[in-house]
């Protein structure tokens, strides 16, 4: 029976208005916006969707949701369980809160090694906060297994995985032996939305928690240092085209662009 581990994280809601986005430069942290809840990173829930599509075909597939983060991340695990995943594992330890991509990969691997052997490890193509897009590939390299990035379709059959992956102007098909790491792109499609019944069932499900010492780790072994975090200046003055009607505004805009030698 196939076992799929989906690595997920939680992020500040990327749909929050940009005008409310604020940074504490001294702490090098993004400030949470009052009243706006963090959400599962969208590419990660698309990864869960990819796993669920495999489970839809191969019913005895087990899907484990794995996350590294503080208490609030439990909501993200519960969301993924409500989508239809089977197990949740939450690595939660203040000593690991500041983990960078490398440390994150090491911590996730330590946890993965405590689980049933995984046939597939699925990650989002990038987290929608830091946008680095490196954890999946780093997992694969540390584990010494293949990785296929930017998947839009994932099929697990006959001891191998067949993946359609995105190119800039097209799609390619790749085949890889398992175990294998896959990162998924948004072209895979919308993640399914949990039904109320599933949300209730997920609420009752136990989430296993692990600390650094459970994993034999004493802290985050970071490879990048965040030296500064700030909001870049947007110094653009907008010239609004005023007119009595929008039709006239359209014409005036064309004339203005002509005058500015832009058309």
């Amino acid at each position, binding site marked *: 029976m196939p076992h799929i581990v989906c690595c997920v994280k939680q992020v500040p809601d990327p749909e929050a208005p940009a005008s409310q986005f604020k940074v504490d430069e001294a702490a090098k942290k993004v400030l949470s916006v009052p009243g706006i809840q963090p959400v599962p990173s969208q590419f990660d829930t698309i990864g869960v969707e990819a796993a669920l599509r495999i489970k839809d075909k191969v019913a005895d597939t087990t899907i484990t949701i794995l996350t590294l983060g503080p208490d609030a991340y439990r909501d993200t695990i519960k969301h993924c369980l409500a989508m239809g995943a089977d197990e949740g594992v939450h690595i939660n330890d203040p000593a690991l809160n500041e983990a960078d991509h490398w440390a994150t990969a090491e911590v996730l691997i330590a946890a993965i090694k405590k689980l049933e052997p995984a046939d597939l490890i699925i990650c989002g193509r*990038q987290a929608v*906060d*830091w946008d680095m897009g490196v954890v999946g590939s780093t997992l694969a390299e540390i584990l010494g297994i293949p990785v296929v990035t930017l998947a839009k379709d994932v099929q697990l059959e006959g001891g191998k995985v067949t993946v359609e992956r995105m190119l800039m102007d097209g799609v*390619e098909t790749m085949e890889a032996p398992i175990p294998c790491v896959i990162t998924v792109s948004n*072209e895979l499609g919308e993640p399914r939305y949990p039904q109320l019944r599933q949300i209730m069932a997920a609420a009752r499900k136990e989430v296993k928690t692990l600390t650094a010492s459970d994993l034999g780790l004493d802290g985050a072994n970071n490879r990048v240092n965040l030296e500064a975090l700030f909001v870049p200046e947007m110094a*653009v003055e907008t010239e609004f085209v005023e007119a009595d009607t*929008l039709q006239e505004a359209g014409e005036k805009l064309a004339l203005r662009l002509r005058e*500015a030698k832009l058309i």
Partner: protein
Amino acid sequence: MPSGVLVFGEATEGGELAPVTGDLLGAAKSLGGPATCALLGAGVEGLAQECAALGADKVIVVDDPVLKDYQGDAYVPVGERICKEVDPLVVLFGQTMIGRDMAPRLAARMDTAVAMDCMELSLEGEKLLASRPCYGGNARARYTINGMPQMATLRAKAYDPPERDDSRQAEVVKQSADLSADAIRARVTGRTKEAVEGVRLEDATVVVGGGRGVGGPEGLKSLEELAGLLGGAVGATRAVCDMGWYPVGAQIGLTGKVVTPDLYIAVALSGASQHMAGISGVKNIVAINKDPEANIFRAARYGVVGDWKEVIPTFTEKVKELTAG
């Protein structure tokens, strides 16, 4: 002692040197060089002189049929070997399909780290400072890297290529891929390319971008006339492509293409940070949106507040009149 900058250049499918190579050599020069350019592919040997003309001091060509199309399992070990031979202070890739896949893997194999999608690089002594957008472009982060070489990928057009000098010479070293038979585990078995009609988005001097507000595929279609009049191309937001209103290859943004036209006409798109990341280098943005608070206006030089359906027809007519003369 590690020294110099190693850049991984790229060739286009047509066998020409990809523009990103010039950008990378420009960045290498700004870091003080000397620049070694690695070129992996099949039929790329003839591009070495162009790398020299664009400022490479040394070119390592690995011209091998096995490298014809990018496959990570083939490119990464070759890249690792070159990195170890050159022993550079800094390694640069483009934030391209190759760079996105290869750079993190190579970083892991070299026991170092990579800062992805950087806009600006500098050296403080031997420390690389890598500045990159994050939170969908809402914030900028500056990193240093614990490890050697220090690696980064560069956003398209973040740096200009050095002025071309065809009299410049570089040492050219040819190598074979020398891959072990079992190196390639994840194998490409097929490829479908989307045919691009007209001007490529990345090359267009005018881009008309459509957002969710255009209401459907017909809305996007109607923008093609305008783009055509201006000799430009139509692009779209991720939301539009995800809904299937327009081809995925036309997606502009963090997870799509980065465009740098002289003029970007944003039609009924709010300017989500995911999209802004794809137009951050555009100086002249025109925004047409019915919401005066839309984020796109924060970056727009010219704006019209109103329903695009009312504005675009007369705008297009006027453009037709002005460009006909």
